[in-house]
Each structure stands twice: as C-alpha cells, then as structure tokens.
C-alpha cells in the first residue's frame, strides 16, 4: 500500500456563482489537461474527461451542484487536491 495510492477522488460543491460555464470551465479543463494523468469529472451518473471543455460544459454544472473529481496515476491525490481547490474558487468574483 505504501506507494500504491494511485487513485484519488473527492466530492465537492461548486462555488462559482454562475456554475461551471465558459471561463471557469476553460480554466478548469486546462488545469486538468496539464495534470498529465487521466482525470474525470462526474455529476450524478455522468462522468466525463475533465480535460474536455465540451465534455465539462455538457454536464451543465450550476452553482452549488455536487461534483466528483477523480484521477488515476502518479500524484493522483495532489492533482485532485489542486483541481478541487480550483472548483472551490468563485471565479466570477474576480
């Protein structure tokens, strides 16, 4: 188990007032794409490639929706932590 934690996931609520649309979605997918390992974003029963702007947009994520970020591979926990931190930011406040 010591080096074996290669899968990580966490569920959170979306902070952005306007949900995960447009700019916030684009910031998120770019970060997910830069992770270098497969990352998925799920809302309800649907799960999409978190690096896909079209996939993420198609989930229609609104403010306060519950979503799950999961990653598989090297540094999975760190990747999930970073992406969760992004989703906890209210992008629209900037």
């Amino acid at each position: 188990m010591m080096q074996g934690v290669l899968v990580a996931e966490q569920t959170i609520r979306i902070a952005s007032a306007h949900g995960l649309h447009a700019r916030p979605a684009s910031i998120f997918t770019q970060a997910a794409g830069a992770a270098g390992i497969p990352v998925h974003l799920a809302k309800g029963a649907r799960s999409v490639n978190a690096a896909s702007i079209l996939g993420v947009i198609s989930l229609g994520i609104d403010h306060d929706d519950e979503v799950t970020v999961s990653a598989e591979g090297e540094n999975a926990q760190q990747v999930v932590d970073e992406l969760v931190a992004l989703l906890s930011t209210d992008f629209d406040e900037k």
Partner: protein
Amino acid sequence: MELRGIGIGRGLALGPVLRMPEPLPEPADVPSTLGADAEKERATAALASTAALIRLRGERAGGTAKDVLDAQSFMAEDPTLSEDVTARIESGKTAERAVFEAFASFRDLLSGMGGYMGERAVDLDDVSQRVVANLEGVAVPGVPDPDYPFVLFARDLAPADTALLNLDKIIALVTSDGGPTSHTAILAREKSIVAIVGAPDALTVDDGTVVIVDAAAGLVTIDPDEEALAATRARIAERAAEVAVPVGPGALADGTAVPLLANLGSAKGAAEAVELGAEGVGLFRTEFLFLDATTAPTVAEQQKHYTRLLEAFPGRKVVVRALDAGADKPLNFLNAATEENPALGLRGLRALRANEQILRDQLTALAAADAATEADVWVMAPMVSTVEETRYFTRIAREVGLKTVGVMVEVPSSALLADRILAEADFASIGTNDLTQYTLAADRLLGSVAAFQDPWHPAVLRLVGEVGRAGQTLGKPVGICGEAAADPLLAVVLVGLGATSLSMSPAALAGVRAELLRYTLAQAQEFAELALAANSADEARAAVFAASNAPQLHQ
C-alpha cells in the same frame, strides 16, 4: 447598375468588393472507401492542424479576439469530440462526415442550453467548417482579410464573424439579408461603419468590383463611371472637412432642446457614453445581471451594480428598465414553460408580474441605489400593453419609493391608448424595434420577414405620433430608445412626431447630434407629415430624404 437596401446612418464610401464566402456544403453521408484506420488518421491530423492554425491566428490578433480563438482551438482538439469522431468513423463514415456530425451534435447540445453557451454554438460551427475544409483540401470559408481597404458583401454577419473582422480594413458593409435591427446593422451603428442591409441582389456582385455605398440614400452603385467616382470622392472629402459638431447637448437648429441619451447594457460603458456627450441614460438594460443565473441576484448584489452605474451620472437622468425577460432573451427562473409564440407570450412586465418578488427586489435595490447617489433615477416597465398594467407597475414602484415611473410603449395597444396610459405614468419611452415587430406582425428574429422590420413604416410612425401627441397634451416626456433613434434622419422625423428625447448606442450620438442641428422644429414636423403620408417605409424614407436635401446640401 444599382442595388437598393436599408441604409444604416448617413455615411458614404467607395471601394472594391470582397464577398464573405458561402459556408461549405454538408459532407455527403457515404460509406468510407479508405477504411477506418486511414480515416481516423486524416481526422486526427485535420483537427490538430486546425487547432494549431486557429491558435496562431489568435496570437496574431491579440486582445479579446485571442480569447475567442483560443477557446475555438480547445474545441478543435477536445478529447470528447475526438472520441465521438472516432466512434462515427468506426461505424463506417468518412472523416469529413464524422467531423461534421460530431460538431453538429455538440452544437445542438450548446444551443439547447441557451444564453452564453448557446452563443458558443456559432463558434463550434466555425471550427467545424475549418476542419472539414482542411479535410476536403478547399479554401476555408471565413472572413476576408486582405491588406487593402474593402467593402464587405455578405448574406448577414453572425456575432462570431464580427468578432474576427478587421474593422480598420472595412470601409463599408452591404448585406443581402437582415434588417435595421440585424446584428450587422447594430455593429455598423456601434462602430460607425457605412452600411446598407437587406439589399436583395448583393451576392450577385463579383469580388473586386468597385462600388459606391450611399447609406443615406440606401443605394449601392455598382461599377460607377469616372464622373460618379469623382463626385463621390469630392463629397467624401467635403464631409471629412466639415468641422465636426462639438460634443454638447442635443438641439435643433432653432434651439429646441432634444436631450441625447445613451442605451447601456452594463455599468461598464458609462464613461465612454459620457465622453461621447450622452446627457444621461435613456435605456439601462438590466438583463445582464440575470443572464446565466439560475436564481435572481440578491437585492444587495443588484444595488451594488446600480450604484456603480448611477455614480457615473451625477445630476443626470438615468432611465432604468425593469428586467425584460422572455421572447429573444428567456431566463430559466422566469420563463419556465415553452411557448409556441414567445414574442406574444409571458414576457416583459407580464413575466415579472407572475414573479412579483423578483420585480419588488429589483425596484427595492434600485430605490436604495437612487438614495445613495446623485443621479436622477427614472424607472420603466417593459412590454406594457394595458392601462391596468400601467397602474400595477406605477403603484409598486412608488410604494418602494421611486419617484419617476414610466412605461415602455412597444405594443400597438399602448400607443393607441397613450393618452390614458400617460395619465397614469410619468413618462413613456417608445421601443421602436418591438413596436415595429408587433405593428407589422413580423418576427424580429426571422430572416424571411426581415424586410418588414423597418421603423420608417408609416403605420409605426403614426403610432409614435399618437404617443407624442398624448405626451404634449399631458405635458409628459416621450423618449425613443429603439434602433430608430440612431438613424439620424429618422431621429429628426421622430422629434417632429413629438419625441422629447432620443436614446441610442453611444457611437451613434455624434451623427444624430449633427443631423438635428440642421433643421428647425417646423422642418422636423414637416418631415413627419411627409413620412406619415407615404404608403411604405421606402416611400417615407425617400420623401424625407428628398426634402432634407432640398435646401441644405446645395450650400
């Protein structure tokens, strides 16, 4: 040869034609002859090179165009899209067809979401065209970008097109479709580009042909002779040399004041409007606060935005329109049910009345912002169609402490009963776009009936005259806040019909200010009579144009 259309503004230009290329035909749905592996390779290469090319264009363009183009490049290399393309190829389709279908399915998904995401659907179409063009080895349809100034001919321009246009190179715009409220017309007014819209045979003109575009006359002269060219060059030089009318309050030649106000959609444009001489705000649209939201913003949030706007106009009039949702701008939390005829449905004040708390919150936020600033706040209700609705709105607005309460006149019933409506309200503001749509029973958003959407129509002008007369009799102000007020010559006619203030996109202020100064109130009234006596919008425009040219332009 000549083409006739609807001129936007009074500009004059001449130059060579470049046509906006037609979109590519849909790739045929035929079985692949190359096999799935070869098709996949072609699709992957085309998507990657299109993404790279778009990114490069973004770097060259910079600014907001770069953001639009970057977003497009991400769409081209999107992993979900690429999986979809692969699946379609594996079912036997060609790369062209698979790409086309995959983009179309995401386009439909985005359109279905409406609002901001719905607008991104046009971007997906654009990327799809580029990838398909790459696969077919044909030229990419898109915006011409030569290194010389040109006159752009197009069917109509989509917002995505105009985001990419190099406006410095475009000396005029001519479209075959679209009316005075089309996206092209609005862009032309905002950027002060010479434009003629709805000129039916525009797409028969070849690239490179020299044309004269005379927006005031609504006339495109194709391949003019030397004499006409020389005369046009002289007129253009003359106009440029005319001392620009200094920024100042709007007035007619006899000194009759006609306050010129700005139409604003957010607090951001306020500083620019003031710089361009806006004497206040004649229409502040509040929809932006609500778009993309699933619930109405709180009173505190709204108050913050209103205060920011009002602070830019100390001592000036600011007319705020209560939330106008429905029809072309539906909001999730207000317009729940799908309607067969949204323009005739639960929209404007009707929708607010069905959700009274949203209306009360908005008015409360506005009253608080009013109390905290120096601006002279007026508030008005959208889409009022009865005297009873007028009473309803004025009662609630006065209850929360707003002092000057009016209604928009956009429906013929309100224009016809303006004397009774203005007995209840403190002022009226005429929205000419909707008034034209409802008077001529022609959907503003439907290209096939765009020709009806012309505020010069005598039926529309007669209704404006009804409101003007009621205003005069009762001593109540009557403003105009539709696109009509931005057409300089029509603005003079509207004043002749009794309009007491004009509100428009800030970029249109200079043109209207200059035009008003040429005529007295008596002349404006004479123009109004000429327009009312005409049989059609074209006749009205031609009659007033002829009269306006009679003494003035022979100086």
